[in-house]
């Protein structure tokens, strides 16, 4: 009995009792043929499936190309009111690739947050942090108002009412001679601490940072 068990552990087909086995054979010819045919089939199928899958899933890992766009001259933007400018975020698709950004000069009396120091201009995204409708700056009440579900933001873009989960996103700004340039987008939490750009609806306060991590495509500039 133990003899048979020892024989089953051996790698030779002769010992396993397979009929038609040759001495010194470790794999039967039938098994070898079947395995080779299956392997070739898998390689052929992978040859057209993997590129197709890569096509579909690839954009998830594509990193955004940072570019800086000139939006106006240094005297176009006051420091107590917002001026809308149009930015192209996706090239070559016409109106669908453009977004509105509200620009204001940095004001040390208003922008007292420690995270904000050093920015020449404040550029606030018009994309609501709830589900992405375009918000509108209302000068009379000094608020950004979202028409879709009633989100309200204050002068600094912080949420003061409605369903949004974090303040409005901002853009990096710099001055190039006489021109003001707007760069990549970044997200902020309610303390105005900066994060890599997130989608609307992702809270970033406290525990909210854990289920909504930064994505591989969004590098910190």
């Amino acid at each position, binding site marked *: 009995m133990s003899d048979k068990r020892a024989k089953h552990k051996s790698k030779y087909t002769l010992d396993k009792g397979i009929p038609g086995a040759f001495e010194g054979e470790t794999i039967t010819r039938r098994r070898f043929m079947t395995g080779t045919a299956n392997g070739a089939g898998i390689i052929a199928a992978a040859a057209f499936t993997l590129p197709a899958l890569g096509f*579909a*899933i690839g*954009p*998830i890992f*594509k990193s*955004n190309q940072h570019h800086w766009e000139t939006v106006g001259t240094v005297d176009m933007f006051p420091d107590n009111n917002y001026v809308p400018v149009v930015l192209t*975020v*996706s*090239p*070559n*698709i*016409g*109106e*669908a*690739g453009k977004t509105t950004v509200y620009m204001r000069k940095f004001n040390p009396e208003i922008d007292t947050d420690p995270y904000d120091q050093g920015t020449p201009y404040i550029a606030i995204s018009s994309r609501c942090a709830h*589900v*992405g*409708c*375009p918000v509108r700056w209302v000068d009379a009440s000094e608020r950004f108002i979202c028409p*879709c579900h009633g989100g309200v933001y204050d002068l600094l873009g912080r949420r003061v009412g409605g369903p949004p989960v974090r303040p409005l996103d901002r853009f990096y700004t710099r001055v190039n001679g006489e021109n003001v340039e707007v760069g990549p987008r970044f997200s902020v939490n309610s303390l105005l601490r900066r994060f890599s*750009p*997130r*989608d*609307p*609806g*992702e809270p970033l306060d406290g525990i909210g940072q854990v*289920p*909504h*991590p930064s*994505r591989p*495509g*969004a590098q910190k500039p």
Partner: protein
Amino acid sequence: MPRLPKLSAPPLPAPLQAPPPRPGENGKRGPVEETKEAGIAVVDWVDERTSLSGAGRWLMFRKVPQGTNWFYTLGSATLFAFLNQAVTGVFLAMYYRPDPAGGAYESIRYVTNDVFLGQFVRGMHKWGSSVMVVLVFLHMGRTFFWGAYKYPRELNWVIGVVLLILTMVMSFTGYLLPFDQRAYWATIVGVNINGTGPLLGPYLSDFLRGGSEFGATTLSRFYAIHMLLLPGALIALIGAHLYLVTKLGTTAPPWQKAEAPQELREVEV
């Protein structure tokens, strides 16, 4: 597991069988009879080479339980709505251009205003999608309240739920295609809602958009999903769903008594 009883193919119903010859006519063959025989000959030619008439009888002349009522037509109504969407969709696809830089909106404007019956076909497609969603939910409700999801029909119910999800995704992807303001913002909102899911949400919304922003390939992606990926999956699963319905039969309504009434029972002589 007990084997399900094997039912033989039902015979041709009486109205479809050939009528007996009238007395005194000696099998007269006028033009009407010749036309009928020509039609039968064509069907016989195909049937001899495919054996499809057996499958046809199995599908169309199957037995249904006593108490079957009009609610049972909701499934066929959903199928009809889907076929309407497929046919009108094919004709719309002949004119539509998936170009986000203005060509998409222009092609739909052309279909609506300048093509003969274009407004009608586009309207059938647009309203047909709402009709289909309503019918899908009514059919699902009927199946649930009749208890028609129980053994051995659980797999059919699962396929039905997958069909519901595919129908919803069809509606979502199709909504973007006219590329007007409503379509664009509804898609932005819908994709962002997907992105709020923890951990994997942003990856799902990136997959739908084709990137982290609404870009050049987003409209093409939605169009390919709406025209190719989902109709293929829908047709395959509807075929499986219909096969299971025919094979397993339909159930009687829950209030139907299992015993036949006294006068219909056979009596041992």
